[in-house]
């Protein structure tokens, strides 16, 4: 399934660089499996904890090293790429040239399906890349098995189809039609009509959360849980109509591009956008996310393509003179941009994971007059699917797909039994919608400090009143003769009320002082003087 044929007499080579696994290489792999740096244990004062954590870190290191060593057996295939000699440029290589060099199986992935009647086609692939759904503007829905090139089902809904999306597997797909969105089964039966959303412009499925996200014509964003059908969130974006919508695969955040040049990012549990970015001065025409979630590509109608670092929310590259109607990142980080009848593939030439420099990698121009509607890289294949006004096409882009598939994640050769089992596993592993956040690695960490931690003044006062009332209404015990005098009783009562008041500290005075105090100091302050030296200092 991987484009990896060796040819040395021609300009392009798809070389799996089989090199001696040097220490450096192993180290980089180990780094990958270590998932970041360990904490600095020197700051710890507790010796026991320190040694225990140190031993744990050692285990992690061991684990990472073993994993790195095993990797070559588990991930045997290497991603292919185009290599040129001397003055040859990779973007001069045509699909016909590639077709001459690759094996038969791969060359079968270069084709055009001409369906002139049903207008521009939207595409979607399943996570494994095995199946594709194509939705023609004029109501043609086709489910295709990409491996055998069989047409599994084809239906004509006789309505405008604005978008199509697979649900968690190829058994279900959703189509945004003229009035409502519908969910169809694999055999083309209509399973659900999603009336609540109104006329849907774009559909995306969040496969970890089982949420079907859609934005409708009036700019409302809907999240619907497809497991039980409940509408999880319905959000008014307030930015007008949009048909630019993409899901960040890393964290499940949905990004919308608006006509004002802003890109907004949303999660279902908040009505306000997580992030708003002014990306372009003109309308945003498309958005795409790198699979690792750190990069975002946007293109505006002012003929600029920008690449953003989502960790810093900074622009890292601007590519001028290019307006992309559709953008797509491949699994290996190639960026495809399509306008008119022209597809451009940009590759990250810097090579390192920290800095990015996207430059031309390949070009492909369709037959004149074809209008590209949707580009999407096929997962686990070096193939990009192009949905256009005259059907759909598929071309080879060496080095775009992940060469090794993980059958636990997505298996292109899945049997029906495996699929069923997978479905159950997916459902068991379903994430609740609140886990969608900008930085999902923060889940399980300490709660971020809240800005407004204290109860408001009114709340405190209400509480105080309640406490005072309670103190006033307490019945005093009958005491012996001398101590049961009314004066004594009133005195006692007064005292109780005072005590109740005292539990609520005076407001306004100690606010600043207490805030300055840190947590550790707080603990120390509470202790009596004699025990202060035992207070834990971090």
């Amino acid at each position, binding site marked *: 399934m991987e484009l990896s044929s060796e040819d040395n007499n021609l300009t392009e080579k798809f070389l799996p660089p089989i090199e001696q696994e040097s220490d450096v290489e192993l180290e980089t792999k180990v780094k990958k499996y270590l998932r970041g740096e360990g904490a600095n244990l020197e700051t*710890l004062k507790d010796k026991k904890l320190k040694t225990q954590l140190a031993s744990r870190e050692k285990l992690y290191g061991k684990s990472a090293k073993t994993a790195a060593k095993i990797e070559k057996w588990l991930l045997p295939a290497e991603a292919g790429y185009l290599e040129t000699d001397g003055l040859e440029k990779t973007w001069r290589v045509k699909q016909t040239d590639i077709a001459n060099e690759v094996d038969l199986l791969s060359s079968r992935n270069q084709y055009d399906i001409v369906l002139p009647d049903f207008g521009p086609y939207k595409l979607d692939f399943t996570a494994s890349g095995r199946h594709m759904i194509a939705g023609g503007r*004029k109501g043609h829905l086709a489910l295709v098995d990409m491996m055998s090139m069989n047409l599994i089902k084809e239906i004509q809904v006789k309505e405008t189809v604005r978008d199509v999306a697979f649900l968690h597997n190829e058994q279900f797909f959703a189509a945004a039609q003229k009035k409502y969105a519908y969910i169809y089964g694999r055999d083309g039966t209509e399973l659900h009509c999603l009336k609540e959303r109104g006329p849907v412009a774009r559909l995306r499925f969040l496969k970890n959360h089982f949420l079907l996200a859609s934005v409708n014509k009036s700019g409302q964003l809907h999240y619907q849980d497809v497991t039980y059908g409940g509408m999880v969130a319905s959000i008014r974006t307030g930015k007008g109509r949009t048909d630019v919508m993409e899901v960040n695969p890393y964290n499940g955040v949905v990004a919308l591009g608006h006509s*004002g040049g802003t890109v907004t990012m949303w999660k279902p549990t908040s009505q*306000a956008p997580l992030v*708003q970015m002014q990306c372009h001065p003109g309308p945003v025409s498309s958005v795409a996310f790198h699979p690792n979630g750190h990069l975002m590509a946007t293109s505006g109608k002012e003929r600029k393509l920008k690449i953003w670092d989502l960790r810093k929310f900074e622009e890292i590259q601007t590519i001028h003179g290019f307006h992309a109607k559709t953008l797509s990142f491949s699994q290996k980080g190639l960026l495809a941009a399509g306008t008119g009848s022209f597809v451009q593939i940009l590759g990250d030439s810097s090579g390192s994971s920290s800095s990015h420099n996207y430059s031309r990698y390949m070009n492909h121009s369709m037959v004149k007059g074809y209008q590209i509607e949707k580009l999407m890289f096929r997962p686990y294949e070096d193939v990009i699917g192009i949905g256009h006004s*005259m059907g759909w096409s598929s071309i080879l882009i060496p080095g775009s797909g992940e060469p090794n598939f993980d059958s636990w994640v997505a298996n292109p050769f899945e049997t029906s039994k495996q699929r069923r089992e997978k479905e159950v596993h997916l459902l068991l592993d379903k994430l609740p919608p609140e886990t969608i956040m900008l930085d999902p690695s923060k889940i399980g960490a300490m709660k971020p400090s809240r800005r407004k931690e204290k109860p408001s003044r009114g709340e405190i006062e209400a509480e105080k009143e309640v406490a005072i009332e309670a103190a006033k209404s307490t019945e005093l015990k009958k005491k012996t003769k001398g101590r049961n005098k009314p004066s004594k009783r009133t005195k006692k009562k007064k005292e109780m009320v005072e005590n109740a008041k005292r539990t609520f500290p005076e407001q306004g005075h100690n606010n600043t002082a207490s805030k300055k105090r840190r947590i550790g100091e707080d603990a120390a302050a509470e202790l009596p003087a004699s025990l202060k030296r035992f207070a834990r200092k971090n």
Partner: protein
Amino acid sequence: MVGEKRRSTSKNLAKNKKRKGPHLPNSILKTIANEKRPLNSDEEDDEIDSDDANVDLYEYEEGVPEEESRKNNRYDPVVNYDYELPEDFEDENVESDDDDEGGNSDNEEGEGDVVRHTRMLQAVTGMPSAAFDGESKRKPVLFTEAYPESEFNPTRDVLEGKGLLTIDDFMAPIEGKPGFNDLQKRISRMQKDTQAVVHAPLPKPERERLERKAVKGLVDKEFNKWVHMVKRNREAPTVYFNQNVSLGYSTVGAIASEFQPRTDFEKKMASVLNDNELGEAHDEDGAKLLELNEVSVEDHIKYRDHIAKMRSLLFRHELKSKRIKKIKSKTYHRLKGKDLKKSAMGALMDPEMAKEEAMKQEARRVEERMTLKHKNTGKWAKRMISRGLNVKYDGTRAAISEQLQINATLSRKMNSTNDGSSSDESDDEEELNDGSDQDTPSKLIAKAREKTLKTVEDDEVPNSGLLSLPFMARAMKKKNEEAIEEAKRALEEYEEWENSGGEENSKKTADVSGRRVFGATAKVEAPKESRKDSDNFYDNSDSDNDMEGIENNDLRAVRDTASPVRNTGAITETEKFDDDIENPASKTTFDVALFASGSWKKMKGCQNAETKKKTKKHVPYSKSQDKKESRDEESEDSESEAEQMVDGILTSASKETYEIPSQAELIQRAFAGDDVVDEFEKEKQEVLNQEVPEPEKPVLVPGWGQWTNIQKKRGLPSWMVREHEDAKKKRTLDLKTRKDARLRHVIISEKVDKKAEKLHTTTLPFPYTSKEVFEHSMRMPIGPEFNPATIVGSLNRPEVVKKAGVIIKPLKFEEANPNEKVDDEHPRSNQKQNPKKGGKTGKGQRKGKSKQKTKA
């Protein structure tokens, strides 16, 4: 010896107190005295003696007059010291050879001491040394006795414990007597034994301190040898207990083989079991066994009595049941029946039975509602009511109310068995009933037919689960067919009934309400035909073959059911089936035209709903039919379709052609980029104001602080201004610390997501003390999906590994091996434990030895 020294000095102090002159506070003096005392002087015996001499000497040399000392009565005279007396007693035994020497040395020492002492006192008190001279040049005091010495007035010596009798004094008289030598020897031995003088114990705190010091060293040493083990255990990620301890026998047989009878019973059993005779008898033949199997007379009698008792019980029970059978009381049987029913209710949980019961109940209800038998419509009841006898007599009233009760129970609906829609319908019918009671039989028929129809329609084959299996599906199909046949027959019957009864009905209705009757039959015919036409489309799919019949039936039936509705409710409907087929795109526009005019406007909503419901039933069919049809005639359809649907552009144009943007949008698009940046900035400001609100401006309460002009000029009180300033400062700080503070083009919401809060910990989990370390440790997943199998075990090993049932013994000492590294790979047993073996000590010992070897 230390105590000795101290005694002397303290005595000096006692003397001091009697003297005049500058005095230090008592406590200081004491401490000074303590300071002076040398800690390790060797000649203890000497000192003691010299001390004695000194004391005497001092008494004589004391030059200060007694009166003066009395006059200066600032201190209480110290009569005695605690540790003086025992000391002196001991002293007597000590032989003093070198009085002078000791005295001299003491004096010399004393001289030196005195000099030092005065110097120190000078330093402490700041007084001239002359003031302390008296101390050093003190003279012993001479006491003159006022009374002659007698037993009533003992000498001072005696009083002070000096000049007491010694053992020698006692010995002297018996010198030369028999046994004297012996005694002498013993005494001398005793004296030798007491050579080492027991001195006064140190003050308690000091003694304890010393003790502690000594003990600490020992304990430290003792404990330090454990340190390495403790450290190792504390730092070990996992502690193992008794790794290789065998837990004993694993099988029941093994346990049984070791069994020794202990109690009497066990012994008895064992004796029987191991009886050779019995074994032999068993082996040889059964006859001998019989011989052995003797039954004692008592046992036999017991058995016989038991049998007799049982028989008598049985007999009594029989009698009782006979008597019960004979009872003819109605109430008794009714109560009994009730009980039975109650128990039967349990059986009714079985759905089949329940259904049957429900059906019966339904029939009874219908009957009741038709006849109104229990509504006191009878002759007797009417009479009773008309004459007011029901009020008069309790019995009558009770009977009548009972009748009503029965009616209520009978006519109560059974909701549980019927589904919602049918109950709705029955509701409707009830309403209808109110209007026209005479219609009931026809209604009943209609209802029954509807029910059958519903059941026929509901027979959908589930497409998943157990029922979707092929053989199940086949069986279901068969069943369905049978049911459908039956339903057909039933429907026909209904029709017949209705034809006979409906005519009457119509006549009746005409009589009663004067409603017009429409010739509905003709109108119904047309759609039926069209439906049949449409059914032909199904022929290509064989799976639908058997469904066809049903549909036909259904449709006909539905049509028919519609007709009585028209009769009663006067609703005409025309359904554009033809239009439908021609215009397949409009799947939801299944038009139902309701003509209601003039007098028929009064029609009831329920009827309306009913008809609608019926019409809705068709929708799915028409839909699916549409699709099928479209498949067949796609080429024709699509053309017309395309023209219909989209705004008519087939050429490959960009997407904008499909959606005509609104005017405002067009303008916005045209002038996009003009002020989007400004707009964005404004928006950002808004968001910031919302998330970090600006502090409220301090406002003066009118009249507050405005008594005089001066106050007015002063403006706001300073604290208000200060507070406002603080709030402002805080806000700017907050704004600065925001993530998007430096990014002009970005707004990052810092709202706290309450729903996501449960995904964070509020406190640090136990061993961690710093947030960073904790969060870093969280970065690595430890599950088997993310780690190589070789590491997963050690990543997830629990803190303590222990076999169940093993007793954890206290830590045993092991020699430290400083070079040994803690090896996590190989589980290390913290305590070696010998397997418990009852009598076999030898084995255990051997094992222990071998372990020791391994340890070494």
